[in-house]
């Protein structure tokens, strides 16, 4: 079947990095911290209420990026199309949400 493999995608993925486990653990800690920050921001009103919503949304986006790129390996080579796929999805969702917030009527 190897004959079908196109020349662009015939690359040998490197040996599993030793640091793999570490990066994943770091991401886990980052996720926990970001989540905790969001809950604290809401629960204890540590930042001005007016900023809370943009702040927690930003936290969510950062966390999502971490998980996508580290846990789901979007950063690795050979993930060009998955990256395009997710990016396009995000763009369409952004347009949708924006419209639903501002232009529903």
């Amino acid at each position, binding site marked *: 079947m190897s004959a*079908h493999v196109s020349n662009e995608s015939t690359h040998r993925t490197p040996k599993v990095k030793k640091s793999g486990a570490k990066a994943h653990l770091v991401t886990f800690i980052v996720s926990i911290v970001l989540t905790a920050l969001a809950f604290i921001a809401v629960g204890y009103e540590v930042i001005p209420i007016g900023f809370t919503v943009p702040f927690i949304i930003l936290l969510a986006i950062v966390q999502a990026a971490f998980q996508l790129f580290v846990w789901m390996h979007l950063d690795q080579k050979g993930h060009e199309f998955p990256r395009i796929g997710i990016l396009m999805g995000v763009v369409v969702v952004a347009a*949708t949400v924006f419209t639903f917030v501002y232009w529903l009527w």
Partner: protein
Amino acid sequence: MSGHAHSHKRSGLWDWLTTVDHKKIGILYLIAGGFFFLIGGLEALLIRLQLIVPEADFVGAATFNELITMHGTTMIFLAVMPVIFALMNAIVPLQIGARDVAFPFVNALGFWLFFFGGVLLNTSWFLGGAPDAGWTSYTTLALKQYSGIGVDFYVLGLQIAGLGTLIGGINFLVTVINMRAPGMTFMRLPMFTWSAFVTSGLILFAFPAITVGLVLLMFERLFGANFFNPDAGGNVVIWEHIFWIFGHPEVYILILPAFGVISEVVSTFSKKRLFGYSSMVFATVMIGFLGFMVWAHHMFTTGLGPIANTLFGIATMLIAVPTGIKIFNWLFTMWGGQIRFTTANLFAVGFIPTFTIGGMTGVMLALPAADYQYHDSYFVVAHFHYVIVGGLVFGLFSGLYYWWPKMFGKMLNEKLGKWNFWTFFIGFHLTFFPQHFLGLMGMPRRVFTYLKNQDLDLGNFISSIGAIGMTIGTILFLANVVVAARSKKQAPADPWDARTLEWAIPSPAPEYNFAQTPLVRGLDALWVEKMAGNKGMTPAEPLGSIHMPSPSFLPFLMSIGLFIAGYGFIFEHHVFSVIGILIAFACMLMRSLKDDHGYHIEPDEIEEKGVKA
């Protein structure tokens, strides 16, 4: 492996129900899509018959609304999409030098889901009334308070068919990305494959939106949810947005493959390479991307406000630029060529001015203030039939005449073909050209009749007469199919002196497509070899045993399961809903647990058939 079961010499009904061969699935799509096209066409004829004179009393008001809804829904989802899938299935793997698609099983599943979804929808005629809220099913009219059980058929039928389309789209994306023959880089992909690729991408990103829309509507109609009902805080405009977030990309899902066909046909029959190939690729991708940013141009009169309207309007107008690039590239492909007017090329050539007219009225519609006048009038009906019938359907006819020999091994008759073209072409313009003026003169769309003395009589009369021309054209095509099927003459491998890979193998394509995977050495792979004086493609691998996926009955069974569940939901007999869903899950489980080892075709069998490398 337990040897190679010689099971590839199958035939008969069982074979068709279990096949996972992309070429056979292509034929299934063509038959089913063609059948639904006749039904949708019949509905169109009834519509035109009712409108031939003012205050006619041929079908009632309620029936008329069912007819337009089913006409639009059937044509878009069950007729032209499947025929597009037919061509994509039949041709894309061949054009990229692949033995099959990435997921043959999923491919079959996609077909059967579409098919049973379509059947479910159409049985509504006999089971309590067809949907009658328009193909757009705008809430509130589509809510339970205002319309009958038909809309439930719409919701579930489209949900099931839509799932089939979605997985089909993913399948083609992966196929094009991963299954290309050596040397077939992205910038060497034939234009039809490029357009199939982008169309599949649009399917992937557009269909989930309609899936959600249909789920919301289903919950609202069947389980008492309140997304749209303003009395409980719902919002009627949400449906409009969701429908068009899907609906606008959908129209480019339809037209891009037609663009692809035209590119292939025009280039082949001008005996020239496609002018501006890379800008064509760029334009296709651009259209696909912009297609997601313009949906609200269907909602200018909803009351979104001037900022939204002008932003969406201007974004819409921008699509004229990449589309124009295509039109001019086609013209300049023909420039300096040796144009042969085969039927396939007649349809392609007829496409160019006709689609241009449709695209231009599209740009006129994109100016919000002007659209306040055009919207929901016959001007819009004229616009979209110009792009859909004069664009897409012409493109599909062109593609069918072009690839028929590759799909069936027989040539369609050219003489009949020319009659087919001219009757359809003239009938088309007679039907839809006057509708522009009807709309401007104040005729709203979706009206089952119109009163006398409004100066609308003549236009409607001509329009209805024109539909006869398209009917004759369609019947001539059917006749042509019969004549071709009966003819004994086998089509040659490369009847048109064409340029791309699919013409390097016999007609019809053998089960394994390529005895040896070809090595691609440039754009228009076959043409490159022809110019180099070679007889055929250079193989990229030695002749060896070919692995094939096994046929499976599970896709059919699984679709039956959802079909049953659909009825369970519609008639609120949830025992059936549960049974149906369990059947589907059981099939999934079986598929997951049991590995498919496939079977092999050995070199001696290949050579037996005389297909030497």
